[in-house]
């Protein structure tokens, strides 16, 4: 098991390659799927926080955490987990800053992937 807490890169490329079975096209497909669902998920999460719906926030954060870790986006996964734990406990007091942190990790990941995949594609 990878110790993803040590990871510093937004995306563990080795993990992604591993879960894709070295299938580059699948990696692309998977990343597309990730970004599509994660964007939607993030919007929904913001809305849940606005509505102070901790249950919904917990569910969304949990799902986002799972998807992120599935592709090897450990930093993104970690911040989602922190949110998840708090939301599960019904604590949305730190939701604003946490959501900001999630967005920051997500944008970071997006940039990283675009750079990498544009390179790769090139």
């Amino acid at each position, binding site marked *: *098991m*990878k110790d*993803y807490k040590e990871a510093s890169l937004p995306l563990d490329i080795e*993990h992604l390659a*591993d*879960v*894709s*079975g070295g*299938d580059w096209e*699948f990696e692309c*497909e*998977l990343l597309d*799927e*990730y970004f599509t*669902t994660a964007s939607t998920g993030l919007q929904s999460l913001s809305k849940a926080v606005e509505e102070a719906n901790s249950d919904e926030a917990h*569910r969304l954060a*949990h*799902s986002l955490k*799972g*998807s992120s*870790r*599935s*592709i*090897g986006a450990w930093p993104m996964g970690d911040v989602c987990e922190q949110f998840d734990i708090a939301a599960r406990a019904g604590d949305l007091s730190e939701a604003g800053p946490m959501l900001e942190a999630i967005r920051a990790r997500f944008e970071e990941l997006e940039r990283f992937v675009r750079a990498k995949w544009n390179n790769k594609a090139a």
Partner: protein
Amino acid sequence: MEQQGRLRVLIAEDSSVSAKVLAKAVSDLGHVPTITHSGEDAWQELQAFDYPVVLTDWVMPGMEGPELCSRIRALEGRGYTYVIMLTAKGDREDRIAAMTAGADDFLCKPLDRAELSARLAVAQRIISMQQRLEDANRSLQDQQEELKLALDRVERSSKVAEMSQKRFSQLFEGLPVPTFTLDANLKLYEMNKRALATFDCAHHDAFERSVADVLGSDLINTDAETALRGLFRNEPFSDREWFDGERTFIASGLPLLGPDGGIVGGIVTLVDVTAARKAEQEVERQLVEINEAHAQLETANQELKELNERLNALATEDGLTGIANHRAFQERLNTLVGEGKRGRAFCLALLDVDNFKSFNDSFGHQAGDEVLKAVAACLKSSLRETDFVARYGGEEFCVLLLDVSCERAGELCDVLRAGIEALPNPHRQVTASFGVAEFGGSISDGEALIRASDEALYQAKAEGRNRVVLASRRSGQSAA
């Protein structure tokens, strides 16, 4: 159910990314993934199709992993479903809860392909074992069914066999004649009670010993052995007479057939006819005796007949003179009277030896008897075959003269009278007087005829003796 090594894997994962990752890994491992995004969807899919492996996420909106797992376990009437729970949770309590709900294995998130491969290999092993177990179970059930049927058949057959054996035993033991069974080597197999008693031996003595040893080589001689061997060529025999030096048996034998129709043995009955043979001999001996007795009886009968004839003669003959006696005369007279009534002519002459009393007195009775004998002989010899002479009593004689008239009878009597007169006699001359009467007219029965003759005789005596007087005329012819 599956192609060799390919498992149909149902994935229940709310995160589409995670689901994709799982599906890709499952597919790359050579299996066939189907993705559902919630517990409810997975449950619907499972109800419609049979999946040997379910990979389910733990936390999902709506129905969560453990609940899905419980529902799968409650499903019946299908192959085993191997459930792998996906979890990031390392908690011991959670794992126990999942196990209790019926999960077979766990897979940690994020996905490690090697781990998935290993888990699916285990799943495959378990499923194929389960499959084999079910097949084996079915085959075992089939075999048990077959075994049960076979057992039933065996039980029925053995019951039938037992009954047959019992019936044979009862018949065999119950036979009222000595009976034994034997094999092709002429070894005894069984002897019934009668046979054991007859040949004075016990079961264990007889079993598998040669027939000749047990029953004796006198009885089971070469001929008997040939007959016994014939049974095993399907040649029954009957009514053979076997003799052991003391007893005579009537032997009959039949081949015993096995279930396949082959000859498995022979059964032989021996009927002791010694007593019957003895009785036959006795009967023969008695028949000889009866024949002898019969012959003796014949002889005795012959003798008796002769004696009877003699007695009869004695009854009708005069003892002294040997001519007919008075009784015979009466019988003859009666017969003639019957004939005379139908028209036959006959005459009766009575004659009396003259002065016989004085002859007796002078010369003794013996001399008198001689005279009577001589007169009788003279009368007999002088008369015709058809005439009848008898001693009437004392010195009186009577003569029945047939088919003659009174005159002719008188002539014949005169010849007789002359004959008597001419008899040689050492003492003195003997003469006789005759009275003759003819049957017919007023003389219509024997009594009347005798009376008429007697009267004529009386007249002859009165007229001087030695003469013949005819009753009808009352006139006598004196001696010449």
